[in-house]
């Protein structure tokens, strides 16, 4: 049962990944719709970032993580290198937790 569940999850995930790639050719998309696809991907990624930054399950994620992400986001906006953004966000959250901030 365990192996079946994992294989079904894997097959379904792969089907959705391949599905988008293959369907793109089959669909006759209008120009505005084609322009909207990268925007849709960006919106999905922004939503992932926002929910991962702010929420823990159905609740708010405390203070340390959103603050770390905020520091990283400000650095990204100031065009800091990717590694600096990620390390600063993690370090801020880790140090805040070390100081007892939830």
């Amino acid at each position, binding site marked *: 049962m365990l192996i079946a569940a994992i294989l079904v999850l894997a097959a379904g995930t792969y089907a959705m990944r391949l599905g988008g790639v293959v369907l793109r050719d089959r669909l006759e998309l209008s120009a505005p719709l084609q322009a909207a*696809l990268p925007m849709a991907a960006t*919106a*999905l990624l922004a939503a992932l*970032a926002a929910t991962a930054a702010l929420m823990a399950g*159905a609740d708010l994620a405390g203070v340390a993580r959103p603050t770390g992400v*905020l520091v*990283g986001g400000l650095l990204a906006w100031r065009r800091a290198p990717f590694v600096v953004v990620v390390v600063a966000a993690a370090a801020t959250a880790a140090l805040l937790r070390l100081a007892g901030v939830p």
Partner: protein
Amino acid sequence: MIAVGASFGAIAISYGLPVWVPFLMSTVVFAGGAQFLAVGLLAAGNPIAAVLAGLLLNARHLPFGLAVAGIVGTRWRDRLVGSHLMTDEVVAFTLAEPDPARRRRTYWLIGCTLFTSWNLGTTLGVLLGGAVGEPEVLGLDAAFPAGLIALIMPSLRDGPTRRVAIAGAAIAVLLTPVLPAGLPVLGALLGLFALYRPRRRGGADQDGSAVEAVEAVESPPRRVGADRPTEEPC
């Protein structure tokens, strides 16, 4: 990625699941969020819920696939292999590459690197077990969203994209307490309707709106809601 993979391996083992489970999942599922969610449900003895929740969480790969289809390649071999490498991070890195000619290389390079490091991390986590510790202690939970923001930042400097992204992020955050995992992020696609709102012309300076973009993505929802209507990005 190695560290997150390691915490996945360690968590799967700490749940008391067989050793081959994290290895198989990291190889054939290769989707971080769905794997964490699924091992929890599998360990709780609920394989059907694990499959359904995991698939719901991964449904975003369909629109991702539509967006990167032209980049992955047109040969069937490339499509079949490249699709499996598709993750949030790969899509973000690829769309962040300004030169279209180099996007294909970025997709494959990042995809192969992440697949390798994710599985390497899983192996380390299984071997080290409890010694890996919670990802929160190292602040890794803040690293993932910050990295995503850094990657989509170039796209966010484009006005219409920023409106769509902020509206989508706000919708997802607001829906998170009331919908099962996976659906709120898909709800972000409704952010595309922000394109059809009547647009104010001129006026807003680039820097000011970029600050708003960062804040709206990151501030707790109550602050966003209190300061201004959540779906009013600029």
